């Protein structure tokens, strides 16, 4: 068999090394080491061409270069905030980037401490007792919250209540997680973009394991009666799970104060920027549910010199030890994204984070007011305070408006026949004037 064996630039060694190593293992050739029966051997070619580093880079560049350059006014769960250079720089340090899960804590103190600090920031932001050090994204964190609710409320039923406006992607992931344990996912009504408390009360009976709400909601509305939602959930002994993100949590009502039992959401609203939906799931809860928490936890221990040190802890919840009795199957998580979030929060500090959150309210309010003045547009649709984003009604079909805006260099969401959704943050704020002009032109 002829097979080119000088192919990977990332595998050191020359022919002499190979010979010596083959001698040591008593093989004539590398192929002899492949203990694969003939019928299942692969003797073909993939037909994948090799490239020089420069050409491989150019291939990616050229392919991605086919994306249109649009200024995005998009959110709905995936947000663009400016990521400070310090975040990029520090998170790129190879000791973080090229490390693995901290199974040997003595050589992983740096990452463990950074993750402990991340958990601590989430504890402060949510007011809850514990946070894990990441799920995949907000949707899978919600799915994990649902299965947790069944474990901790096993006597009281299997219905999960979510708002009727829940983003489709999130609802689908929740359904996937709910399927195994036979939870049934049902919706409760919303009014003006937020929880219809009476409607929720009607839907909530003793069979409900979990009530989910978001603040801000998927349409950007700030919930005015979260405390009432928490009280309802409490009265009916359902777990109250709240969706949010670290920017919103810096300003909006503290989840612990409105009775939230679990907070899930997108930690990646800080530290990641847009990455085609790549995120980091935030998960925090009360101490009572600690041993039912999915995912990794970093705790404080002591080393042999009695100095404080950090370690993964309560690993008996995890799949590598408890196998089918684990609280979750998650193994690889989003640790690097959690690190980036933590550095971003630290870079802003408390003042900077609150300022950023207040800007999310002011920018959305001001942009909605300006769009409302455009003929053929009413904004915001919902009579609520908003965070980052809001919906606007358009006299023209929304799809046509969005398409025309795209031609003018802007991307927005279409959320109804005559409804678009617009998101504004520090990242696209400099383009607001041009955006308003474009909407005026096409609406």
């Amino acid at each position, binding site marked *: 068999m002829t097979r080119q*064996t000088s*192919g990977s630039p*990332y595998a050191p060694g020359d022919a002499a090394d190979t010979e010596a*190593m083959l001698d040591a*293992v008593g093989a004539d050739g590398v*192929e002899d080491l492949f*203990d*694969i029966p003939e019928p299942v051997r692969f003797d073909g070619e*993939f037909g994948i061409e*090799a*490239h020089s*580093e420069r050409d491989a*880079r150019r291939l*990616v560049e050229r392919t*991605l270069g086919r994306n*249109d350059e*649009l200024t995005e006014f998009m959110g709905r*769960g995936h947000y663009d905030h400016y990521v400070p250079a310090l975040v990029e720089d520090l998170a790129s*340090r*190879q000791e973080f*980037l*090229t*490390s693995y*899960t901290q*199974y*040997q*804590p*003595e050589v992983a103190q740096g990452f463990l401490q950074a993750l402990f600090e991340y*958990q*601590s920031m989430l504890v*402060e932001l949510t007011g809850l007792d514990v946070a894990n050090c*990441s799920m995949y994204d907000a*949707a*899978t964190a919600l799915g994990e919250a649902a299965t947790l609710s069944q474990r901790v409320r096993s006597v009281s039923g299997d219905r999960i209540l979510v708002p009727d406006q829940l983003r489709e992607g999130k609802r689908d992931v929740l359904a996937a997680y709910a*399927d*195994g*344990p036979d939870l049934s996912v049902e919706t409760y009504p919303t009014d003006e973009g937020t929880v219809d408390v009476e409607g929720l009360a009607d839907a909530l009976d003793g069979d409900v394991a979990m009530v989910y709400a978001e603040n801000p909601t998927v349409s950007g509305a*700030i919930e005015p009666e979260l405390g009432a939602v928490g009280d309802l959930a409490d009265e009916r002994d359902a777990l109250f799970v709240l969706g949010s993100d670290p920017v919103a949590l810096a*300003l909006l*009502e503290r989840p612990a104060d409105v009775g939230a039992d679990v907070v899930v959401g997108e930690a990646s609203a800080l530290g990641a920027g*847009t990455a085609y*939906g790549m995120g980091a799931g935030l998960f925090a809860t009360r101490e009572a549910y600690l041993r039912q928490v999915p995912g*990794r936890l970093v705790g404080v*221990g002591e*080393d042999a010199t009695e100095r404080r040190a950090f370690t993964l802890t309560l690993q*008996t919840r995890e*799949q590598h030890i*408890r196998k*089918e009795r684990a609280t979750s*199957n*998650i*193994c*690889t998580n989003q640790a*690097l*994204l959690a*690190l980036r979030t933590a550095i971003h929060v630290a870079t802003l*500090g*408390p003042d900077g984070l609150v300022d950023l959150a207040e800007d999310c*309210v002011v920018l959305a309010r001001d942009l909605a007011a300006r769009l409302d003045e455009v003929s053929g547009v009413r904004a915001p649709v919902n009579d609520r*305070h908003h965070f980052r984003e809001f919906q606007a009604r358009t006299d023209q079909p929304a799809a046509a408006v969005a398409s025309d805006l795209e031609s003018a260099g802007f991307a927005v969401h279409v959320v109804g026949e005559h409804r678009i959704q617009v998101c504004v943050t520090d990242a696209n704020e400099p383009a607001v004037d041009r955006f308003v002009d474009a909407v005026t032109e096409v609406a």
Partner: protein
Amino acid sequence: MSDETPDDAAPDGGAPEPEAGGDAEDHAPEAGTLYDQARWTDDGEYEPLLAEKDSTEVEIGDDSPLPDDLTRDSLELPALAEPELARHYTRLSGMNYGVDSGPFPLGSCTMKYNPKFTERAAALPEAAVHPDRSAASVQGTLELQAELQDYLGRIGGMDAVTLQPPAGAAGEFTGIRIAAAYHEANGDDRTEVVIPDSAHGTNFATAAMAGFDVVELPSAEDGRVDIDALEAAVGEDTAALMLTNPNTLGLFERDIERVAEIVHDAGGLLYYDGANLNALLGRARPGDMGFDVMHYNVHKTFATPHGGGGPGAGPVGVTEELAEFLPTPHVREQGDDSGYERYEPDRSIGKVHGFSGNWLVLVRAFAYIARLGDAGLADASARAVLNANYLASQIDYEVPYGPFHHEFVASAGEQDAADAAKRMLDYGVHPPTTKWPEIVDEALMTEPTEAESRGSLDDLAAAFDAVAAEDDATLEAAPERTAARRIDQVTAARDPRLSWHALED
């Protein structure tokens, strides 16, 4: 994968008695040390927490754009200047070991070198787009996705591939849900998933999470699937058999055709756990072996940084028969030269990620595969397998079973494998996975990957051998040259303190 004893269940996993300072010299390796970690101290403690350096509480005041009843009262977080933060995190990085620091032969984790150019490729501004953009405006992204689907399909011998699962375990969940949907579509109520005892823990957790009962399959004397046991285990309740090949002992399942026949005859599907795919590139393909569905750990096989525990990505490949069940959205080229589109397969299982998975990891994997091509990928496997066999032949620890593919499991014998691992840290190498799989006593599960040179493997072997020759007292006192000394994980679990708020109590 496990390389620690269960922390709060371990009968004897406690830390050794603290020793008086200054004894490090007693046990310090004389030669062959590759790496020493920084040990930043402050008044006898290690690097302080951010909150200990500065913690500032801000009020949410009257100048807030929201009424009081919609806002919190205050927020307390560290408030440090950029230079202080740069120094804090740089110090932390000095207390952390990555694969660029030295060998990282953690079995089944495939910690190999990650090319730097893929980082730059993933950082291209064109990669940073919103997932809800119109298909017409992100043709580049969709094309790259379609190309990567195609690459992975060829490599695995699969007909269709989804990129959505954000990690290997998420890929398992996707694959098992596809298997469930397939049986359901056939009106076939199957309740069990069969898994060998040597399998990754995620397999068991995934099957349970998807609502299946787990049937554990004991391994045969030679460490491979026991065909008699398999025949006894599968039947009309079997939805799937989850298998990795080579398995976690590094052994190729030579009877794979027979295994496939038994499972298929019973009406079950064969699921391939791609964690060990690095051993097979260009030599064998799961699709050709009879596997119906598989996941790829692109962060392992196709070398993207593991980021201290993630992100990874776990694309799933399926045969044509299962393609209609793939998650939505799926990506394909439209027939009429009008570019690429997203669509929902006819009987899609729905979604396993809120959007489309860990996109930037996938960009890196694409770049890596394009860099290596056919010959490079095949070479990567060849050298990974050669390196594993070479290292296995060079160490004094007993290595049962064989011949090996990309990894082998040595036995620490009379030594405690976890203690031996701690001692290896003193020789400047990351230790193997320990005490797993449980089939081997005091297991040291070792996967050097193709990224280690012969010289590096010799250094690794020297470290293994030095540790193999040491007494229990030395091992129990280790490590001594790392950023922190041996950490007592039992106490940490008994009294969990999981945030800096908990330290104030």
